[in-house]
């Protein structure tokens, strides 16, 4: 008995980023912004951690936004509504720390990291905060969910690296502007490791800018997601070892040794590349086989 896929929607024309909604009532009941889930597609699949992008307690569903980068995520992108995922585990990790702040709360979402900002931003709004969202992507086509954020956020800003939508530049640039304009209580940055690193450097109070408490969401490599393997570990600035799955995934951005984490995330890069090529090759072969059959028949 697997977990049923309710819907799948591609968010960009290249079909590399997609939103997937699954039926998981018990998980949905407990899930909050900040939590993540682990799924395993089939018997030979690996355990893939994904941050919760939305939950609907009434419908009993969980939404995830996934970018097809490796073999397994490419494989998920090919599943259709009605298909089942063999294993679905969650909610894992800690929920976001939601409370009422004096000044605005700013979310900086980069790429697929835009999605996990969504439930947290909504919870922050429900708590009565002034919520600002900076949504950034490489280019227009990779920017999604602007309308969903506009529904409830007090301010929404868009940045793209190439200027094809909104301000030309990075999310960090927009954040810097805001920091110069007004006092901010909290920054939550979710996106590529390098983006989170620069946000944390901007808000750490060590330059001529004010210190703003900053939360980042760590998407390290994981196996179990429950603290039993240590594969997800990261170093704090104090040289302490912590586990992203149980101490996070949301952690104090000023206390993360990003340089080490950037290196740790290259652990399987080479193997993964070879594997993806092999998988794509297989898919092409199957497609070709099917096409030929069709021509004949």
């Amino acid at each position, binding site marked *: 008995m697997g977990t049923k896929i309710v819907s799948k929607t591609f968010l960009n024309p290249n079909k590399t980023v997609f939103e997937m909604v699954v039926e998981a009532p018990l998980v949905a009941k*407990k899930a909050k912004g900040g939590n993540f889930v682990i799924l*395993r597609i089939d018997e*030979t699949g690996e355990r893939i951690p994904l941050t919760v992008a939305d939950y609907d307690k009434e419908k009993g569903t969980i939404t995830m936004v996934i970018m097809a980068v490796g073999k*397994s995520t490419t494989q998920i992108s090919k599943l259709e509504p009605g298909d089942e995922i063999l294993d679905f*585990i969650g909610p894992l990790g800690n929920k976001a720390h939601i409370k009422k702040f004096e000044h605005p709360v700013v979310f900086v979402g980069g790429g697929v990291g835009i999605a996990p900002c969504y439930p947290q931003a909504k919870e922050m709004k429900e708590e009565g905060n002034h919520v600002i969202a900076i949504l950034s992507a490489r280019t227009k086509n990779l920017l999604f969910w602007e309308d969903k954020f506009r529904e409830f956020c007090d301010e929404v800003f868009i940045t793209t690296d190439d200027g094809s939508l909104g301000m030309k530049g990075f999310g960090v640039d927009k954040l810097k502007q805001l920091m110069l304009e007004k006092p901010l209580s909290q920054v939550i940055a979710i996106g590529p490791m390098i983006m989170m690193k620069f946000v944390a450097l901007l808000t750490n109070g060590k330059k001529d800018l004010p210190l703003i408490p900053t939360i980042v969401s760590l998407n390290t490599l994981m196996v179990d997601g429950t603290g039993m393997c*240590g594969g997800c570990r990261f170093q704090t600035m104090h040289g302490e070892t912590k586990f992203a799955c149980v101490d996070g995934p949301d952690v104090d951005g000023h206390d993360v040794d990003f340089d080490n984490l950037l290196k*740790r995330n290259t652990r399987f890069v080479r193997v993964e590349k070879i594997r993806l090529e092999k998988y794509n090759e297989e898919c092409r072969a199957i497609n070709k086989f099917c096409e030929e059959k069709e021509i004949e028949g």
Partner: protein
Amino acid sequence: MPKVEIIKERTPMPHQDAKIRAHNFEEVALGFTEEMALAEAKRCMQCKNRACVKGCPVEVAIPEFIALILEKDYRGALKKIKETNVLPAICGRVCPQETQCEQYCTLGKIKDSKPVGIGRLERFVADWDLVNPEEISPEDAYCEDVDDDRLKVAIIGGGPAGLTCAGELANLGYSVTIFEAFHKTGGVLVYGIPEFRLPKDIVKKEIDKLKECGVKIEVNSVIGQILDIEDLRKMGFKAFFIGVGAGLPVFLKIPGTELNGVLSANEYLTRVNLMKAYDPEYDTMVDQGKNVAVFGGGNVAMDSARTALRLGAEKVMIIYRRSEKEIPARREEYEHAVEEGVEFHFLRNPTKIIGDDEGFVKAIEVLKMELGEPDASGRRRPIAQPRTEYIIDVDLCIMAIGAKANPLLTKKTKNLKLNKWDYIEVNEKGQSVSIPDVFAGGDIVTGSATVISAMGAGKKAAASIHEYLLNIY
């Protein structure tokens, strides 16, 4: 009284050849044939004082089951064992017999004589049953409908402790549900102990038998996250057994543990055993090492080292800070590791892990040790020899230096009393000292121990849960 014949030599266990097996994941020890089992059973002197039984944590009726083997009543022998040990196929393979039953065996006390191969006989009987299963009559088989009015008990954690407790309670007529965090049940038996030592099929068969007895299993259920004990109470569960093991990995506090290529034995073994990273059909990846260093000297270290060999490492070194005499691993595993070509570096302690520019391990620094006076554990304490450091080139480092209690569930369970190492405090009945409907056993109570002691604890807790529920309902 007829004089008993003393046969000093043990019937040898057939093995896969060391050179071949070091490159495959198939079982190392092949098991006795019927002939071998009968020959070994004949060695037992049927001692009146049953010395061996005293060495067994669950007091298996050893001379009695051996006598039944001699009568070729293998089913009878199995039933005899199962009176106290519900997982004989597993225990026959992984129990440290040399420090338990076989250590006390009278035959082993005689000059030049070896103890009876009790574990091997236990395994023979259990394996015989797997090939010749008893037919279950339809009336005995579990029937879904009787579910409703039985009392519900929740078992948290599907390792040997949880499985045993579940089996016992199901036999007593309770409606039992196991909640397991992983996608497979079995605990260390499936994620830790490798295939070549304990085939996963055997674990699966034992679990299937539990399901036949009506035990329900909910995998992918991390209790403390998806549901907590309070939720389960609201769902109608009347008693709880916590058997979540001691799954928190320990990393040495030395420079360099953050490097790529440094991992806990838990992660290494989980990737390989549970996720089958050794099989190209499976997607999970595992770090490949040419020169591998494993820190530690227990079963976990042996399993990691032998796994690394099988994954194609050229050189695998076990770095242990005490001497050969002190290694806590099962003797047989140590011997197998030596035969397969694992190098042992005794009296060495790693002091530093050195990385390259890209953040991958390239070497370790180790320090020589000497043994001093015995410490609290009774083992001689290793003492560092200053300025004896040297460097060994390695590209993979596996930490197998122990495990601690995982606080995920225990810290989220209000009022659950823990000891100073975060293990659950229970009374002699296996009942939590602070919450009456919560019972616990296995590694989460004792710290890392053995399969058989976890099973023993599960069995004891089942009896206590029964007593507790009888008093209330």
